[in-house]
């Protein structure tokens, strides 16, 4: 097949620069919108996926399986778990990876602000928590002492304050009592990054909950049989100590269960993506229609000198796809520059917009798809007319 030269289609784009620029701008905005929406969905999904460590099993109250912040269990469970699951737990020397944690969802105020903001704080045993919470690392300052708190990197976004207001050495008010910020931790991509951590005994005293914790987090041997491990946990909760009203859940399963609550929101976001794409396709098709309508004679002449219809159609596709691809690349660059990593405060935490590979793939596929779709109806229309009639067309 004899093809039209590559630059034929590209030069055509420059023949009507205003029209081309407007179409590129429209397509670019559409792809930008898609990338932000997909980035939101990906950010939410990834933060829930990455927050759950598949090796970690949580012992919590049987009635709080869906909201662990509300769980309350006896703190004797920590010692029981250590002995009961001794052979199945990851160990560092003599220390088993078992971490008692008290999680509170409460109101926090920063500096002189009287109006508090909501956030999650977790009381932890600093000697053990890092054996279980492998994602967490200290990036600034020190571990908290009495009356001190360690904050995650997303805490400023969560509290709606600047990073300097909660910098190391600053004071925040929790439960009406001032706490000094001792350091900052990172836990990339997880909801933990929006939390504040302090010594579990401090938090117990503050919350007037001296004898209970929210969960006991245990890290099981990754080489072990996962089904058997959960079987032991279930047996312990149901049969050995039913009086404690315990239940065991894999942390990854818990966060997966939270995903279902966000399913309608994700569905709505995808609906938004679909509708924006339809609007973008209308714009692209419109431009290509106009490009074809004014060139009926030109296409007839090209056919008359021997170019097959497929070659002309291919040139039209090329024109449309080059325009869409250019707009898509510009939109992707803009989204990476402006939206990537932007922290969004959300209930019980915060997460970052993730313009990751999946988001870019969806955005670019949609952008190029709009170019392809935009060219099909006009191409069909262009070749409906017989060559002699098209040559006479005005």
């Amino acid at each position, binding site marked *: 097949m004899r093809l039209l030269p590559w630059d034929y289609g590209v030069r055509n784009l420059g023949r*009507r620069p*205003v*029209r081309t620029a*407007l*179409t590129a*701008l*429209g397509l670019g*905005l*559409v792809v*930008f*919108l898609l990338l*932000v*929406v997909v980035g*939101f969905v990906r950010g939410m999904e990834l933060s829930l996926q990455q927050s759950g460590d598949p090796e970690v099993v949580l012992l919590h109250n049987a*009635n709080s399986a*869906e*909201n662990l*912040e*509300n769980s309350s269990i006896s703190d004797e469970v920590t010692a029981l778990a250590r002995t009961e699951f001794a052979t199945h737990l990851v160990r560092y020397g003599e220390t088993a990876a078992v971490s008692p944690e008290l999680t*509170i*969802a*409460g*109101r926090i105020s920063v500096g002189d602000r009287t*109006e*508090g*903001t*909501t956030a999650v704080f977790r009381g932890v045993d600093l000697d053990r928590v890092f054996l279980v919470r492998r994602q967490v690392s200290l990036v600034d300052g020190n571990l908290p002492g009495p009356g001190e708190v360690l904050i995650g990197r997303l805490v400023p*976004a969560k509290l*709606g304050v600047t990073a300097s207001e909660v910098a190391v050495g600053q004071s925040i008010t*929790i*439960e*009406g009592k001032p706490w000094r910020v001792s350091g900052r931790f990172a836990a990339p991509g997880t909801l933990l990054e929006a939390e504040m951590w302090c010594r579990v005994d401090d938090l117990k005293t503050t919350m*007037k909950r001296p004898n209970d914790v929210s969960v006991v987090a245990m890290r099981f041997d990754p080489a072990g049989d996962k089904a058997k491990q959960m079987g032991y946990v279930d047996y312990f909760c149901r049969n050995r100590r039913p009086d404690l009203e315990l239940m065991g859940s894999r942390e990854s399963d818990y966060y997966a269960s*939270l995903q279902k*609550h*966000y399913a*309608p*929101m994700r569905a*709505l976001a995808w609906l*938004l993506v679909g*509708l*924006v794409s*339809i*609007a*973008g396709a*209308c*714009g692209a*098709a*419109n*431009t290509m*229609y*106009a490009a074809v*309508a*004014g060139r009926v004679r030109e296409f007839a002449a090209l056919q008359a000198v021997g170019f097959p219809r497929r070659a002309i159609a291919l040139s039209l596709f090329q024109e449309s796809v080059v325009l869409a691809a250019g707009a898509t690349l510009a939109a992707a660059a803009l989204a990476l520059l402006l939206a990537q990593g932007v922290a*969004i*405060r*959300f*209930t*019980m935490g915060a997460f970052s917009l993730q313009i990751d590979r999946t988001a870019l793939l969806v955005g670019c596929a949609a952008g190029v798809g709009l170019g392809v779709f935009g060219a099909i*109806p006009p191409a069909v229309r262009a070749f409906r007319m017989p060559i002699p009639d098209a040559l006479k067309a005005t």
Partner: protein
Amino acid sequence: MLKFLPYVRKNILGHRVRSAMTVAGTAVLLFLFLFVTSVQNGLDRILDARDDKLIVFQAYRFCPSSSQLPVFYADTIQAVPGVKAVLPVKVVVNNCRASLDTVVFHGVDPKLLPAVRPNVRFLSGDWSAFQSRTDAALVGRRIAERRGLQPGQSFTIAGITVQVAGVFASDAIGEENVIYTHLTLIGNPGSHHDFHATLFEVQLDDPQHATDVAAAIDAKIREKYEVPTETKPQKAHYAGALADLLDLIGMTRWLGFVCVGVVVVLVANSVVMSAQDRVKEHAVLQTLGFSGPRVFSLMLAESCLISLAGGLLGTAACVGFLEWRPMSLSTEGVSIDFVASGTLVVAGLVLSLVVGFVAGAVPAWQAGRAEIVSSLR
């Protein structure tokens, strides 16, 4: 100008595919803009509501399940001067986090409820049906429609099993998302002093003194009991609960503005194409005596009509969708309704006209100022 409407109409219909695509694209994008604006409207309705009640919540807590106040606090609160009535409410939600499908139970004393909810209009059932059974539930219209709940039907959500005794409508904000049950059904089935409520709703003798009464309630509770309270006007309580959604709503607002930007580009592109295709036609019109401003206004009318048609379709689709499927965004037991108000409809139509004007102004101005001789060639 009106006598030229048939000419404008002919031009629009003369390029059916182009016009239809522009109208369709505009309709879809305005639908999206109005949809996200309806959330903002719902939030504004909550934040602009009349403040005539106080909410007593456990201090420093925000999720309903984390606030546990003994029901006997009601007696202390009632004794504070300026308090007219106190309603202990046990709130149970199937999900404390942000969700589009949250079910909120308010466990209340069935004898006290009629007096403090005079605005309730029964679509089916009545107060006596609610009071006669301990597992009876009064279901708000919006949640009944969303979940398909009918009177007589029994259902279990969040571990609570109830039978629908009636469905009600209400003009109080967010109330149509609530399911009222008996406090005893979702409280602890022990003695009176074992009961815990999530919050106390306080009616005031004079709402003007709300701040003073709130401070007096908190002071009294601190003086007598260990678990402190935080009393706020209802609006401030809602604003605090919804604070976590403000980022999300702010982001959707920006997305809405980008949608409007795309509409402007879409319509402008269509008008530019129309103007470029009719350079000769406009020159002929000017030769026949049409002035430049007249040509400008004809092009502008075309742009505005296309945009308005898209706006009408998009607005009708948005209102129809929200009527067909009432939606609410909830967190911590407080719901923001997606509100398709009259203002929203007017805003949609005015916006589409403005978009038509903005998008058409430059190409129309160029068409009106074109040189006749060079255009004819």
